[in-house]
């Protein structure tokens, strides 16, 4: 087993294209996960039991089934029902939907951590539910949520190779396709690992930095 730089040279352009897809899928997927997650968290706290319970069971269902199965469903089953998604769109939707059920828990915990008195104060000021959320609760709830949300971003990044199962040519699949026709695994797979590290280690430190920053700020708060 010998390291061959020629292989690195041959596979690198395809892998860089794959990396772009990986990052695209991660960020758009994360955006979706955040927006959907916030919506799920708010709906879950609805006063109507029908809404609250149906949201609860839907997110349980999504969270307790494997992402891979959901991706296959979105890609191979939905078209039979008339919904046709491109591989990347199906992948992003799958990632976003799956992780929204996790981020919704972060949002819910953040919102519930805002002291009860804040809700009561909003009520006494005659704020509507929207105003209460927008001007009182969320501004206090969001900062402590940022570090865990950043961690989910990193987790999602590491889950993107699953998209290769639905023919998305992201970083891992780009390397795998090369390996399959050139029978070289050492260099492409090492590079996949290196690329993931290059992105995820600095991001992890960034998430830790965020954590420290927001901890300090919240402890300074009266």
């Amino acid at each position: 087993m010998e390291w061959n730089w020629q292989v690195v040279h041959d596979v690198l352009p395809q892998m860089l294209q794959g990396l772009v897809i990986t990052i695209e899928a991660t960020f758009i997927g994360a955006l979706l996960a955040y927006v959907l997650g916030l919506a799920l968290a708010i709906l879950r706290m609805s006063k109507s039991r029908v809404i609250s319970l149906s949201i609860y069971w839907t997110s349980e269902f999504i969270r307790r089934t494997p992402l891979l199965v959901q991706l296959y469903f979105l890609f191979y089953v939905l078209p039979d029902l008339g919904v046709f998604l491109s591989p990347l769109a199906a992948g992003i939707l799958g990632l976003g939907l799956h992780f929204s059920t996790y981020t919704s828990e972060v949002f819910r915990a953040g919102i519930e951590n805002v002291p009860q008195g804040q809700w009561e104060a909003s009520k006494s000021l005659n704020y509507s539910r929207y105003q209460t959320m927008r001007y009182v609760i969320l501004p206090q709830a969001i900062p402590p949520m940022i570090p865990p949300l950043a961690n989910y971003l990193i987790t999602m990044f590491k889950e993107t190779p699953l998209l290769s199962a639905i023919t998305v040519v992201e970083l891992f699949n780009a390397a795998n396709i090369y390996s399959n026709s050139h029978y070289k695994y050492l260099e492409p797979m090492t590079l996949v690992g290196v690329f993931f590290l290059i992105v995820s280690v600095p991001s992890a430190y960034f998430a830790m930095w965020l954590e420290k920053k927001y901890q300090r700020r919240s402890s300074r708060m009266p």
Partner: protein
Amino acid sequence: MLKTVRKLVEAAAIGAVALTAFAAVGSAGTLDDLRKQGYATVAVANEPPYSDIKGDGYVTGAAPDVARAVMAKLGVPELKASVVAYGSMIPALLARRVDMATSGLYIKPKRCESIIYSQPDLCGAEAFAVAAGNPHKVLTYEDIAANPELTMTTCAGCAEEAYALERGVKKEQIKVFTDPPSGIKMLQQGRVDVFALSGLGTADLLKKTNDPNIELVMPVKGVPMGCAGAAFNPEDKEFRDAYDAALAELKESGEFAKIIEPYGFSAEATLAVKRDDFCPGN
């Protein structure tokens, strides 16, 4: 605590060294080891009629059936299958994850650089599957190359992928599937325009899919007939030569034709070719 960790690490290191040593011994006389063990592990791709794994794990299909008959002659009564994608078969052989690959792996010069083959055991034409009526009139790989709008699917690292690239099809036009039935599904859903695979493999899939909206184009003109053989690790030349001798007996006795013809393969076409026609000196 630290001590236990260190002990564990030491044990792991010793284990790793022992394993490497064992692997080195294993390569000395593969066939003898297999006889002692009583079975051989074979790589198959699960592409009927070339290879087929039944619900209970029994491996059958034309290529494993030939291999089973040959190995029985060599004193190894049993085959155990390991499902390996075509593109990963050569690495699996080189890493000795399997003893041989019996799944219709075509004999191709590029592959012969890495592995050794038995004499050809299965030959067949190539095929496409396309939408009914063949709306884009795709009959050859050149037709796909001529229309950059078209997309096709096949398996990564397969002979069909190489045929396409050699004949001017762009990389962007090829979307590799994860397994052949998924490839057919992609064709049904209009994600690709052409599905390319071995003739008999495609015909078998279409028969099972039974979708009137898809039709078979066979044979694909302008590409050679694909001939497959059992594939071995290049260090197992002795094993391969013994396999060849037993395979020749099988071909002579007529038993060979009896095994492969029910699957739709032509024994005559296979007997007419030699390994040297594809890979001289392999």
